[in-house]
């Protein structure tokens, strides 16, 4: 069973030999390098992995775009694709030059700093969102014009909700 894996942006190819899905002693090929591992899921999402050079514990937190995996205090963003499936197209790219500015966290819009039609510089504050007693300024990713301002002062926003669009 072959997997295309994107690790912190770098593409790797993992092939598992034998019955996939069984833990325990595994044989595999990473890119063209063969190897063996002894793998146990000791807690949900926590893997104890014995490799020739050491004992590793990998903690997996699945996310929408892939998994976040922590090993020995180092965090890896890992996206796995089973090549038998069609490659995902990914989320539709923003229309040329048009950037969606989303709230990075749930919170309350306490101030809207610019209006639709305003010209903004890269890094200029657009909206202030308050969460956990902290006011967080959400900035423009680029210089341009505010083509849409969705944020309304005093309302609550969820994580990922669009605050504004800059073109």
């Amino acid at each position: 069973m072959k997997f295309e894996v994107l690790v912190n942006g770098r593409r790797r190819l993992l092939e598992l030999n034998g019955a996939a899905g069984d833990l325990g002693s595994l044989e595999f090929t990473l890119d063209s390098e063969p190897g063996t591992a002894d793998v146990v899921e000791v807690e949900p999402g926590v893997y104890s992995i014995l490799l020739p050079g050491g004992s590793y514990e990998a903690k997996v937190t699945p996310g929408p775009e892939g998994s976040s995996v922590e090993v020995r205090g180092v965090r890896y963003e890992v996206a796995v694709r089973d090549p038998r499936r069609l490659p995902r197209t990914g989320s539709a790219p923003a229309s040329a030059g048009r950037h969606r500015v989303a709230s990075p966290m749930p919170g309350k819009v306490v101030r809207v700093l610019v209006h639709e039609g305003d010209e903004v510089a890269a890094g200029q504050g657009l909206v202030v969102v308050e969460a956990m007693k902290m006011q967080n300024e959400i900035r423009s990713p680029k210089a341009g014009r505010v083509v849409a301002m969705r944020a309304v002062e005093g309302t609550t926003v969820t994580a990922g909700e669009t605050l504004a669009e800059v073109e």
Partner: protein
Amino acid sequence: MPFRKILIANRGEIAVRVIRACREMGIATVAVYSEADRAGLHVRMADEARLIGPAPAAESYLRLDKIVAAAQASGAEAVHPGYGFLSENPALPRACEEAGLVFIGPGAEAMELMGSKTRARQTMLAAGVPVVPGSSVAAADLEAARAEAARFGYPVLVKAAAGGGGKGMRRVEREEDLAAAFREAASEAERAFGDGSLYIEKYLVQPRHIEIQVLGDRHGHVIHLGERECSLQRRHQKVLEECPSPLVAAHPEMRAAMGETAVRAARAAGYYNAGTVEFLVDQDRRFYFLEMNTRLQVEHPVTEWVTGVDLVKEQIRIAAGEPLAYQQAEIEWRGAAVECRIYAEDPDNNFFPSPGKILALDRPAGPGVRVDSGAYPGWTVPLEYDPLIAKLAVWASNREAAIARLRGALEEYYVSGIKTNLGFFRRVLDTPEFREGRVDTTFLERWMAEARPADPPEAPEVELAAILAAVLHGLPARANNHERAAEGSSAWKLEGRRSLLR
């Protein structure tokens, strides 16, 4: 037993801390909670719990009337304010007194005095406590601010005359930036405290923040418990504290000098119960009174580790009128303690808050490791409150060993579902500046502004482990596989199955 029942006017880890102290003293506890905190650990652990309003703090934890009503309805004899919320509001001790409740903290007068930067400053000057050159300025008087700033010389600091915690604080490097900073600070101060008065002071370049813990009883006996180094700050918020201060460790005479000054400051304010006198220390080791925190500090565990004094229990005994259990000469400092504040925030994304549901939570354990936390697996960190979810404080016989222990404990600490600053601390602990104790209040932001240290040297097996785990975790057939695996291949299980087949 000083009291039979205490109400804790707080939430999260500090409410849990106070509940534990009360439980050990045989005192029943009453928790209060907002609608967002029904499942809070403090509600679970208290003997009683009372709902005091909706999620926003202004409608619950900041509602004096509801706190007092809850205390009276539950038959509590005393109120512990924790830190934050109403803890430095003199109206709380006043309301307690009127309601016949004991407030576990200083008197309203001392609180009020220290709550006003200008009055506190005057009192300190009169008592011979060194202060940073500065003065207060009315909300609208930009010209007066300009004159004062010119007198001290730039850089200067502009901040709210009321309140604390860095709210409305701005550093001004040049005269031409003063007007804008003045307006912003005044408006922020007005919003936060209902008072736009400002305070303008000389800005010390790369000072250390070192504070002294004091304890005073209601019979005029005041002692100090030594210092805490709190120079690691981000946006004027402490993130890591330690005792001893590396500077004081290198210059032991500083502890007695600063301690005696802090005791003098507390006496001048007529202070009793636990309090903290904060100093800025310049590069010539001159120290200046910054402010007095008239409550228990977040970072009190490092002092508890090193002195062996339980500050919360002492607070309760003092409030009950008992004399201090310690003389100054009995306070001894052993080893070194370091505390990290674990926040629900994302260091990789501008430290934005990260409330949400905790999916997995492994706390560190073992010798010299203390965790104070209000979090548990499955709990949802509410959006409405401070992002502090836990404090990790370690002790060892010296600073180097304590840092090594903290490093290991951070590696054991695992939180999934929300982002935390655990990984950030691991990187901070590895900086030579921190290891060598060469820190000041500007260090952390300077370090963060520099290029981040490169990722750890390529460790192919570490990455391989991550890849294997991600791939295996994604296989749908493997649901609940961990149960099988964790059982190992114990002979008993195999035998057990066999015996069923007979």
